[in-house]
């Protein structure tokens, strides 16, 4: 059983559909009373950081999420909210991993369009359980204008890297908390494999 946190800022349906394809049961949690700290959790999210954080605080999730003991996966905005703060709306986030969320810059010599929309490669370390049986440099689907930048003493939390003008952390992990900038639920077969790996984590 996977619990999916619904705070009004995610394409919950797609995540649930993807899990359903894998034959994994899931439950959508929209109030903090239903949230269990011993249950695997997926934390999706699209939209702006400011709104999302105020929703999380209003619903009481902001205090409880850091107490979760079971494997926890933040997707896209859900990953960004694990950091200390975001440049987007100058938002203070959950602070589970030390570092910031920054905006992509369209500056020479590498001109990029913002948002990043489309399939990009993720470089991974082979031993990462989240990327088990997923080839290095596999393509995943991204939609983002901001990226996660862990503090320099937190480099070990980066388990995936992607190039879009700069090299940024596209997957992170600290203890039971995982985050991916891409959308595994929208990344075809390889994305399903990653979700399946997550569901098998102890």
């Amino acid at each position, binding site marked *: 059983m996977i619990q999916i946190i619904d705070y009004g800022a995610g394409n919950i349906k797609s995540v649930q559909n993807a899990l359903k394809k894998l034959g994994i049961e899931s439950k959508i949690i929209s109030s903090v009373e239903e949230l269990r700290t011993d249950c695997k959790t997926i934390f999706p999210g699209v939209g*702006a950081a400011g709104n999302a954080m105020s929703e999380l605080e209003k619903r009481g999730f902001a205090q409880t999420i850091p107490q979760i003991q079971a494997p926890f996966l933040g997707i896209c905005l859900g990953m960004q909210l694990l950091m200390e703060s975001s440049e987007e709306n100058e938002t203070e986030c959950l602070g589970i991993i030390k570092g910031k969320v920054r905006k992509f810059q369209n500056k*020479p010599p590498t001109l990029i369009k913002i*948002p990043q929309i*489309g399939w990009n490669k993720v470089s991974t370390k082979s031993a990462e359980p989240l990327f088990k049986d997923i080839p290095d440099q596999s393509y995943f689907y991204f939609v983002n204008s901001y990226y996660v930048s862990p503090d320099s003493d937190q480099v070990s939390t980066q388990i995936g890297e992607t190039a879009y003008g700069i090299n940024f952390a596209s997957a992170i992990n600290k203890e039971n908390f995982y985050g991916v900038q891409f959308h595994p639920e929208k990344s075809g077969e390889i994305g399903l494999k990653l979700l399946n790996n997550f569901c098998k984590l102890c």
Partner: protein
Amino acid sequence: MLIIPAIDLIDGKCVRLSQGDYSQVKNYDQDPIEVAQKFKKQGINFIHIIDLEGAKEGKPINFPKTAEVAETTGLAIQTGGGIRTFEDAEKILNSGIKRVILGTSALANPKLVKDLVSKFGADRIVVSIDAKDGIVMIKGWIEKSDLTLEEAFEKLKDTGLEIIIFTDVKRDGMLKGINPENIKKVLNKGFKIIVAGGVTTQEDIDQLETLNVYGCIIGKALYEGKINLPNPNPKPNTLSKRIIPCMDIKEGRVVKGTNFINLKDAGDPVELGKFYSDMGADELIFLDIMATVEKRDTLYELVRRISENINIPFTVGGGINTLEDIKILLQNGADKISIGSKAAKNPNFVKEASQKFGSQCIVISVDPKKIDGKWKLFIKGGRENTNIDAIEFAKQMEQSGAGELLVNSLDRDGMKNGYDIPLLKAITSAVNIPVIASSGAGSKEDFLEAFEEANVDAALAASLFHYGEIQIPDLKKYLAKKNITIRI
């Protein structure tokens, strides 16, 4: 911004003048082919070659050498100097040279510009306006004309011309930097501006980038090592270009028309979508072309089925009128919503929608048609001209928070003779959000052209895929071979 290194030729050799003064020649004594090859290695793909003798004499003299540079290096070249007749321009344009630059002749004879643009297209003709203290200079900058800059622009307004090279003669070859005040005076006059004269440091380039000029020409500063070309190995960007099959939906079934008539049934959207996803499509678009309020439930049901069965991103569009429409489609599993007529009628709607749901799910569908040399925005499936300038509209949509633009072309739709490259180029240079090319694809080469020439991020086709005229895996292999970043 396009960075264009300059080569000046006298007697087939590279030289540089200061302030256009022929007595201040610096002879670098190099073969232009070698110089061009060097630029090419540094990642340059466009070069500016001026025939100084030609400019002085009023007829092309070093033209054979220029054609040789183009042929040997394969670089795109714009060339000028003494091109004053239709025949001279034609000869050069037919020799493999990308663009001709007209100077003096253009101002004395706007009809020549008009004739050349209509025969060769606005992308191949450029007029160079050289000015000193706001007055246009002619004959290789030796003489003052009796025209002010304003008057010169006015003369070119109705020729169909799109690109102007503006040279600040006082700054040229002086290594003293650009004068942004003079440059600002020529921006927003309805032309794309390439700045020449005085581009000396990286700060100059950055400043031009902020001014949003189309390109800049760098000469002396390059030869004397004051400026380095952009790093040929820029920081990597591995984002792949997207191939998107588009399914027009009517009452839950796939149709595709040619120029929006002659609809044909091409299958079940979910089956077809799944097939494309398995074939390697990067994304899918479903457009409800007969969207009516009564038939909405059919669409919602379809969207639900798609999201249950397909796990690549998909966009839904057609008849989107309210924030509630968007909300329900997203709740049913759509990733992005394409908005058309409503955005043209009420740009504020786009602002509200992007604030409420996030820019990432707002795609604006733009339907331009060229009328009297300008792209006008059409709505209602191409039936109604809004008289809005399509390029300005694109910029406005970006400011309103659109995450992406889907650019159709009413002139090309269903014609299968290629995407509308000039239109797409105009839009990708006007905005910095992703652009999806639509309308006109008929061959693999058309996709390549859109990615290479028009800098689009995704390319869409419908019947071409539905009737198996092009298979997505073949197309992707072809593009990968041509060095397009593509997901295979």
